[in-house]
Each structure stands twice: as structure tokens, then as C-alpha cells.
């Protein structure tokens, strides 16, 4: 299925998509960054391209346009797709040096993500594999039971079933927790005030500056709850930040 999609995408890109890409690159080299950005963003919205290279180019174009926040956002997006993308790491480092505070990204482990996800050592996929392994073991033990029905084997069979049930419950639980896991976001405005509650009338607790990376662990309407490096938390307008995972959407 993925291969089919890839072939379709390649064939479409070989025509219009590739042309748009080339035109955007040309615009970039001519210094027309806005046109370059529009071209790259078209590839995302119209052709559904989600490539590290494209996000990387967008990061470059936004940086040349002077929008550090957007540049950081797209470099982070490129790195989220391909963590070994050295060029994106290097350019991100350069851009971060130009931000006001060049803050490090907050550590996800410092954020209390709920006791379940915090202490449970397996990912949902690992839990699922353990469930399948337990069911497979139960199947094997069932045949062994049929051949040699010793009480020990029967207990092992029952234990495998209990094991599978427990891990399936843990799979569902950890999957639920992963759904609500905090998301990396980047401040895309010059200054973004962060409030104690969702009320702009109160004085801000602290300010985020363009390019600052935060974690968003809750979204309520137009507001997002952010967690900044150093443990500061509060609410800010959602449009002050761009969530890396939703880049280009």
C-alpha cells in the first residue's frame, strides 16, 4: 500500500510537484523567500509531501525571511522525521544562536506525563508485541496440553492467557497515555505572554520569545498549556506557537 502511494506520489511529483519544487528553489536563490515558502507549502498542502528535505528547505527560507520561530519549527519538523539529518541539526543550531535566549528544548521526562507513562517501561508497540507473544505461547502450550496434559503445562497455559490479558490492558493504557503525551512546539511570534490561567487580563507570568521551544501538554479552545525549559508552565494563545507534529497542516 505504501509502495503504491509512493509510486503515485513520485509520478505526480515528477510532473507538477517537481516543477513547483524547482520554481521554489529558484525563487529562494533569487532572494524571493515568500514565493519559495509558498511553493514549498503548496507541496505539503496539495501533494501531501512530508519529507525532511522539504521541511529543511522551508526552515532555510523562513530563516532568510527573518522569521526565526518558523525556521526553528521546520528544522525541528525535519529532525522529528529524521533525527539523523545532520544538515538540519546544524542549521537549527545556527538559528537558535540567533534567538533571543537560545533556550534548550525542555526535557519531556521532566514533565509529569502521568504516573502510567512515566513509570511504565514499554512503548505501546512493545506492549502489543508482548501480548502477541503471550498469545503465541498460549497456542503452543495448548498443543503441549493436548499432547501431555500435565498440571504444570495447564498452569503455564493459564498464566500465558493472564499475561496476554494484562499486557493487552497495558497496551490500551499506554496507547491512551501516548495519545495525550506532550508535543514539542515553537514560539512563532516575537513575544508570547504566558499567563497563569486562560485570561489575558491578568499580568503574564513570563514571556516566550520567538524561537523558544516549549512542550504543549493540553489544548483548550484557543489556548495551549506550555511547559518551558526550567520548569515554567502556563497558558498562552495557541497561535503564538506552532506544534512541530502539525507542521504544514
Amino acid at each position, binding site marked *: 500500500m505504501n509502495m503504491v*502511494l*509512493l509510486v503515485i*506520489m*513520485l509520478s505526480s*511529483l*515528477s510532473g507538477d*510537484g*517537481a516543477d513547483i*519544487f*524547482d520554481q521554489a*528553489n529558484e525563487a*529562494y536563490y533569487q532572494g524571493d523567500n515568500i514565493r519559495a515558502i509558498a511553493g514549498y507549502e503548496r*507541496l505539503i498542502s496539495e501533494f*501531501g*509531501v*512530508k*519529507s*525532511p*528535505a*522539504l521541511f*529543511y*528547505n522551508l526552515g*532555510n*527560507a523562513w*530563516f532568510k525571511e527573518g522569521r526565526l520561530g518558523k525556521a526553528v519549527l521546520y528544522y525541528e519538523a525535519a529532525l*522529528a*522525521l*529524521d*533525527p*539523523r*539529518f*545532520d*544538515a538540519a541539526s*546544524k*542549521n537549527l543550531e*545556527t538559528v537558535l544562536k540567533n534567538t533571543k535566549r537560545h533556550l534548550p528544548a525542555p526535557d519531556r521526562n521532566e514533565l509529569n506525563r502521568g504516573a502510567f507513562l512515566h513509570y511504565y517501561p514499554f*512503548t*505501546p*508497540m512493545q506492549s*502489543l508485541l508482548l*501480548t*502477541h507473544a503471550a*498469545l*503465541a505461547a*498460549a*497456542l503452543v502450550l*495448548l*498443543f503441549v*496440553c*493436548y499432547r501431555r496434559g500435565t498440571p504444570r503445562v495447564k498452569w503455564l497455559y493459564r498464566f500465558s492467557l493472564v499475561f*496476554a490479558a494484562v499486557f*493487552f490492558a497495558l*497496551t*490500551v493504557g*499506554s*496507547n491512551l497515555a*501516548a*495519545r495525550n*503525551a506532550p508535543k514539542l512546539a515553537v514560539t512563532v511570534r516575537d513575544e508570547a505572554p504566558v499567563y497563569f490561567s486562560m485570561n489575558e487580563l491578568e499580568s503574564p507570568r513570563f514571556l516566550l520569545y520567538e524561537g523558544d521551544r516549549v512542550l504543549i501538554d493540553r489544548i483548550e479552545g484557543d489556548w495551549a498549556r506550555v511547559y518551558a525549559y526550567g520548569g515554567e508552565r502556563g497558558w498562552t494563545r495557541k497561535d503564538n506557537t506552532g506544534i512541530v*507534529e502539525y507542521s504544514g497542516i
Partner: protein
Amino acid sequence: MRCYVVYIALAAWLALNAHAQSPVSADVSSRRVTVNEVFTIIIGANGSDVKEPDMSGVAEAGIVVGAPSHQSQTSIRTIQGKTTMMQSRTWRFPASIANEGTYTIPRIPVVVDGREYLTQPMTVEVTRTVEMGARPPHDTAELTIDDLAFVRAIVSKSNVYQGEPILLKLRFYTLDQYYVNVETPRAWPFPETEGFYLGVQWQQNVTEQYAGRNYRITEINQALYPAMPGELTIGAWQWQGGVRWYDARRRPQTAARMFATEPVRITVSPLPPRPANFTGAVGLFRMNVQLPEKQWTQGTPVRLSVTILGEGNPNTIGAPTMPEMPWAHISDPEVETHQQENSMEVTKSFSYLITPLDAGEQVVPPVEFTYFSPIHKDYKTERFREIPVVVQPAADNNTFVAIGGSAEEQRRRIAVFDGDMLPIITDAQALAVNMQWKTARLSTFALVSPLMPLMLLLVTQSLLKHWRRLTQDRSYKRRYYAKTKCLTAISEAPRGQDPTETLYRAINGFVGDMLDINGAGLTSSEVETLLLERNVDAEITAVLVRVLKACERARYAGRTSTDEEVNALCDTASDIVDRLHACLQEKRS
């Protein structure tokens, strides 16, 4: 008058006595201690200006003195219009004695108001034996408090070369008997290691026999690298702890103890004259070189990884000497250091990006790494052989010089850029790498996927149960195969020599199998009775009995039934067997 003289004399004597009394006092917390037991030397002094006591004489008397705790009180007095400041200071020195005997704490000088006063000498008796809990009969050796808990410092070698790794083991032994428990400092102090670089440290707990007794041992391992030649000393590992144990009457006992090791002397020899390519690595090393491919493309970088493994200071392992390669560009190395857990083994990787500039058959010359080997007492050079490679010319004859160096195609096409920023990627093929966000979430399909093996499991279980019953339960087996057997016999009956007889036997057999009785020799009336007893539908019973009777009649009539009669009988029999089977199954369920 005489009375006044006595008063004046008494006042004068008191004044003189007060003047003569020393402003310095000393005492010890206990006059009788055991070896290494901590006791306290308390020194008090009063005056306007009180200096620190000089404890050097105490140390010379063989008494180990620790850092004191200090209390001070200042009061201001005004006597006859003159204001003076009075200090009252008290020092408490923790002290211990390493050998038994009677020790005299010498006079300790303290300077008060510019005049030196001496304290009184004090004697302390140091005993060795400690009353212990009940001992097993075979353990006749007398236990001392030092046997309950003690410390040792062990070094892997004491004659080394500069930079050579030494493993220092600080071992804290606690007797694994008699409920011995030691209260240790929250953070272990570490001995003075001036002149050494500190390497990796790890801690482990082991149980071991020492001097015929079992001990629980906490072992702190520290890698040390002598930084300079000469005589270096690893200081004493010294700390205070509280030992708890139970005496012969099972009463809990405690004693504050000073745990200390002897200082360790290390003789460090200088390194012989250094060769040109020596970077500072001293120890035992080996080198691995990895080159993933031998077919290269002009302008496309290839990663050459040189890994140095061994025991030695990772900070002194410098990059190996890379040979001159005029046909290629070699990047600065990316360095990665990995220290093995609970070991002095270290792995340091140097990763170079080689970008071939000229096509054709080329050779990567040998890579060399020089280090000093203390075992051989000389410098050694690890050498990796030369590697022949074939560089293909670039397909599109472009002028790109790749710097990314990763395996992905897209990263190979980034041009070198003079500014801080790397330029955009212009190759449209890079867009084909469509990826998904790495997320821990599972799709719905994945979440419900355990249902499939679960269903397989349930089906298998019911099948196995069925097969087991077939092998173990005879009546079940008869019932299970009854219908098939009967219908097969009925279908084959018209082709047999005596169809009605076959039919009769098949039906009787079916009834016998279904009711788990012997079907042979049943008459139609017996079949009727058996079925009615089991509340089988009267119509089905009647039809079946009619078929059986027809067979009986044919058997005794002495003539062969026509094909039409036989076929009609078979059809009816098939139908009624079907219905009877369903009916009996229903009754059973």
C-alpha cells in the same frame, strides 16, 4: 576586729586562687575505649582573646584527631567603667587510637589573652576485645570490634608509568553475622588524589570470605591516571561511622568508629621520549577500521570509522594519524566516547567523511595509531592495512561536493556553503522520502490485532477438545459418526446384494450408535419403544418404524424388492435419519 582580719584573709585567698586558676580546661568523653573507637577530646577556654588549641602534640602521641566542632559565646562586661569582652570557646575533637594500650593525651597549649596555657594531661586506656553475640562452636577466634567492620584500600599496581591506568578499590567490610550494622555517611568521602586524573567510578556490593569470616563488602572502584612522574600518594580513606551489634545477652550495642585506610604510595615513572605521532594514550589498546563500501562515487562522501578499544584514559586517546589522500577530501573526525559500565574498558570512535574528488582506482593508505604500552615498556603502533577502492565518476557531472555523509540519498546532495547556514536541497528526488511522524501511538488495526490470535486460540482449543473427546469418549465418537456412517450405508444400499437388509442394519446401527446401545438384532418394535422412551417425536418414530417394518417384510417375503421400492425406501430412510438425528441432538442439548 579579729573577725574582719579573717574575712579579709579569706577574700585575699579566694582572689589569689581565682587568679591562679587556669582559663583553659580539657576533658575526654571516655577514659576507656576500644581500638579505633571514636571518643571526644573537649577543650574549653575563657578570655578576651582565645586562640585555637595546638593539637600537633596529640597527633604525635599516636592519636588520630579529626576536624573539631566548635562553640563560642561572647559576653561584654563593664567593671568600674571599663568595658571588656569575654569569650568562652569550646572545641570537641573526635579522636581515635589504632592500637591497644594506655595512652596519655599530652598537655595541649592554648593561647589566651596572649599567654600560653597548658591543659592537664589525660590518660586513655585502649582495649581490644569487644563482647560479642553468641558464636558458633567452630568459631573460637576472639572477635574484636575491628572484625565487625573495617575498610581497606587496594590498588591494582603501585609502580606505573605516567598516564597508566590504576584501579583503586576502596572496600568497606561489614561482618555478615551477629546482626552487625554500620551507619555510614550519606555520601562517601573520597581520599586525597592529588596528582591523578580521576576516571570512571563505579560501586558494587559483594559477599566474600575474609580471614575465615563472611563479610558484606561495599566496593568503590575508581580509575586513576597519574598525571606526573614521581612519588605520588593516594591519601587515607577516612570517615566516621556508627557500628551496631548485639552482645552475648542480645542487648544492642553501638560504638562510634573512625574508619581509615593507610595512605598508598604510587611510584610513577616518566614516559620515554615520545614519537611524533604519539597523542598521549597510555594503556592497552587495539584498533578497528570500518569502511562500509569499496565502490565509491565521485563527490559522494563515505564514512570511515576508526575505533580504539582498550583500557586507558579516554581523554588522552587522540585521533589516529590519517594518511595523506590527494585524491579525496577528509573531514575532521566526529568523536564518540563510550565507557563500559563497571569496567575500565573504553571505546573511542573517530568518524571521518572521505569525499572522493578524482575518479579511478584509488587506495586508502594505512591508518596508524600510536600509544604507550606499559607491559612492553615501549610505544606501539597499531596499523590497519591499505584499502583499495574504485571511485566511479559522478553520473551527472555536477560540481556538488557532498558534506552530509549519511546513508540517505538526499543528504548526499548538499552543496558546500561558505556561510553559517547550509543551503537548501535542490534534488527533487529527496521529496520522495515521505515519512511519518515518529509517534508511540498505535493504529486501531494494531490495537484490535490481538483478537485474531485470540480467535485462532479459541477455535484451536475447541477443535482439540473435540478431538480429545473423540479419542476418549466412545459414546461421543459413536454419536458423532453415526449419521455419516448411516447415510453412507443408505446411499450404498441400492447397489448391494440385499438392499433392504443393508438398510435395516444401517438404521438399527444408527439408533444403536445414537443411544449408545448394541444396535444389532433390534426389532422395529424395540426401536419404537426405545425412541418413545426418549420422547422422540411420535411422527418421526412412526415413519422410522414403518421403514424398518418394510425392510423386515422384504426380508421375510422371499422376493427381491424392485429398484423403485428400494430407492423410495432409501430416500425415506435418509430423510428420517436426518430428522431423527436432529431430534436426538436437540433432546441431548
